[in-house]
């Protein structure tokens, strides 16, 4: 199916097979993977995706129709993982088969941008605390190296 919300792993190979099965001189596939993020004192090990399924599927199908019309796409994929997705795994795949590269790139860009901002899907970080080495206390009267501002 062009539109998919699933708890199962997504693969680029499967998306490519689907996109290459239809006529068109250009195939563009984009995959978004979960990346490690060490901000805010935690190490992300996974993202947990949540969806409001009925309006999400309706919106994905509307995006599919719009992309076929606007970019002349003969095939599309709009796939998103749900539930827990670990660092390194693919969370989202969009792709388009179009007559030429410009339309194919534009279609893929349109799909991922719209998906991120208009489809009711949310993510929450799952992580573990980062272990930091204990701070060394500076002895009175001794400035520790690297303290203070650079000149």
């Amino acid at each position, binding site marked *: 199916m062009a539109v998919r919300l699933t708890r199962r792993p997504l693969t680029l190979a499967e998306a490519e097979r689907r996109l290459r099965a239809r006529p068109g001189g250009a195939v563009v596939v984009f995959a*978004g993977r979960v990346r490690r993020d060490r901000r805010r004192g935690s190490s992300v090990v996974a993202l947990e*995706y*949540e969806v*409001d399924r*009925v*309006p999400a599927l*309706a919106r994905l199908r509307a995006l599919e129709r719009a992309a076929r019309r606007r970019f002349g796409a003969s095939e599309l994929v709009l796939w*998103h993982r749900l539930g827990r997705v670990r660092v390194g795994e693919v*969370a*989202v795949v969009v792709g388009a088969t179009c007559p030429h590269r410009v339309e194919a790139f534009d279609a893929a860009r349109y799909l*991922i941008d719209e*998906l*991120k*901002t*208009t*489809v*009711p*899907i*949310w*993510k*929450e970080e799952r992580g573990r605390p980062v272990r930091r080495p204990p701070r060394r206390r500076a002895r009175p009267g001794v400035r520790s190296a690297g303290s203070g501002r650079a000149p």
Partner: protein
Amino acid sequence: MPRSVRVRLFATARLAVGRAVLPWPVPEHGLRARELVAALEQAYPRLAPTLRGSRFLRNDRYLRDLDETLRPGDEFAVHPPYGGG
């Protein structure tokens, strides 16, 4: 027929309330979406900032404005800003 709407909360809205679903009583004359949002803000002050940036749906359809009247048995969904991908 229950005399309540089923409020469905997602993401930060769910975290602010601590529940994904809330039954909310509906008076005889019905309940405007605006009244429900105000009542939720009052009942759950931590939810207020999220409500200000959220979209609302009645029975899986986006509300055009908050003057729509909710009826018993309706579902009312609170959608904080989306974050897929």
